């Protein structure tokens, strides 16, 4: 997870993006090309956050349970400093 910069230099925009929204969040997805491969860029514009996930990371999402994501959301609106929310009870 890194601070989001609109002109990210570590990938080439593939030109197409999709947006997923509900009343709680809006994120944008697009495929970006690295020199030798590709990743999925997920951007949360309101929070100024961004992450680049490769194929194996994305694949690993497919065997997670809802509880994994509840763990990600323990701090609700981001990562609390110095904590690993996913390990909190």
């Amino acid at each position, binding site marked *: 997870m890194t601070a989001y910069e609109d002109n990210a230099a570590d990938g080439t925009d593939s030109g197409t993006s999709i947006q997923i929204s*509900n*009343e*709680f*969040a809006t994120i944008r997805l697009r495929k970006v090309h690295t020199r030798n491969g590709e990743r999925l860029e997920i951007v949360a514009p309101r929070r100024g956050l961004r992450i680049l996930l490769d194929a194996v990371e994305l694949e690993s999402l497919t065997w997670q349970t*809802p509880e994994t994501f*509840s763990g990600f*959301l323990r701090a*609700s609106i981001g990562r*609390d400093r110095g*904590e690993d929310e996913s390990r909190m009870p």
Partner: protein
Amino acid sequence: MTELNEKPGTRVGRHTGTVGPGPLNGSMQTFLSEVQSDLVQGMLSPRVLNDPELHQVELDRIFTKCWVFVGHVSEIPNNGDYLLRYVGEDQFILVRDEQGEIQLLFNSCMHRGSPVCRAEKGNSSHFRCPYHGWIYKNSGDWNGAPQRARAYRKFDGADWGLRKAPHVDSYQGLIFACLDPDAVSLREYLGDMCWYLDVLLGLNEQGMTTVGDPHRWAVPSNWKSGADNFVGDAYHVIALHQSLEEIGVLGGDVARGVGSNFHVALDGGHGLIVTHMPMPEPLGYMGFPPEVHSTFDLKGLDADQRAFLDADHGVVGFTIFPNLSFFRSFGATEPGKPPTTFTLLRQWQPKGPENFELWNWSLEWKSAPKEFNDAAYRAGVSSFGPSGIFEQDDTVAWAGGPPTGRSVFARKTMKFNYQMGMEGMGDYAIREDWIGPGTVSTTPWGEMNQRRWWHQWADRLMAQ
């Protein structure tokens, strides 16, 4: 230093139970006793249609005790699908959680009462309060909060999930919830209404589905006027709905057809208006054209239920106590066009004693051809809905309730007449040869169902 000498982290009890209804005051007790004895005489005080104190007692003793309709299963087909719905005047989130279970969650954050959902519908695995960011799973469980390790170190999240209805269940696709932890099951609450729901909605495995979202609009009337009408009032059709004949949407059969209707009264205040008439062309068996009724599969019905349908019986309307009604009839999409059969669910949502919101769902058969379903939808919204011809008639008539109910003069001098069909009043009698459950009348010219609905209402308000 501790503030106010309180022990930090003192564990609080789980607030999962609900408090029983408060006691009735003496004057309310007296009034409701009068209502019960008036009903035996076929009379009803106009006060029941507009009284803030009585309204509060209804919210306390009916809407927190009865099973109340909150939606159709087809409205939340996928995990995470949610809608805002009401039980009485309280707003809830109706959601299918990540385990596929249907939950009804009070839409109020446990921190300061802010609504955690503000959109009328959506899909989300978690609900995050906009105020301080407390976040809940879509099962209602407390999931977390910002800065938890510094702000809520001794906090037990298990105590702080969203409040939820203790009972949610469905029958023939209709989802009901009950806020009373000690309630009987939905099956027991519906009782013999299940038999009729089977023949109305259970005609094949696919069943019925809602078309879009319910239409909803404000009506300047008391919610009970709608329930009273749909539970048994076939009588008003010949006068109030003459408008349909006048503009050519329905022929004179409307008035004549009423003569072949009768009432079915069920325990629990539920009641139906049953029809017994062959349908006009091209409508046939069960009121549906061949391309629709050929998709039905009645093997889920028992012999009596099949006999009910084989004998050209149908149900034009019902009310499930307290505030869910149903309508199925035929109508044309425009004058001169052939009739089609449409099905609606209708709910009378209280908004104080003087107003209600009318919610109207159109239903269609998943198995029916699109052309039929489209025409049925158009015929339905032309009849009932914000611009529906029936609706415009009905809601004007019902608007008389609140001004009469609040009138001091009316309360002193007036009782509504509910005597039609009482002993010696006319040719309305109880049929003995009925194939289905319930108490059945010989004609529609009586008010047995309405009297029984109001008895149920008064009994529930009086219950200890």
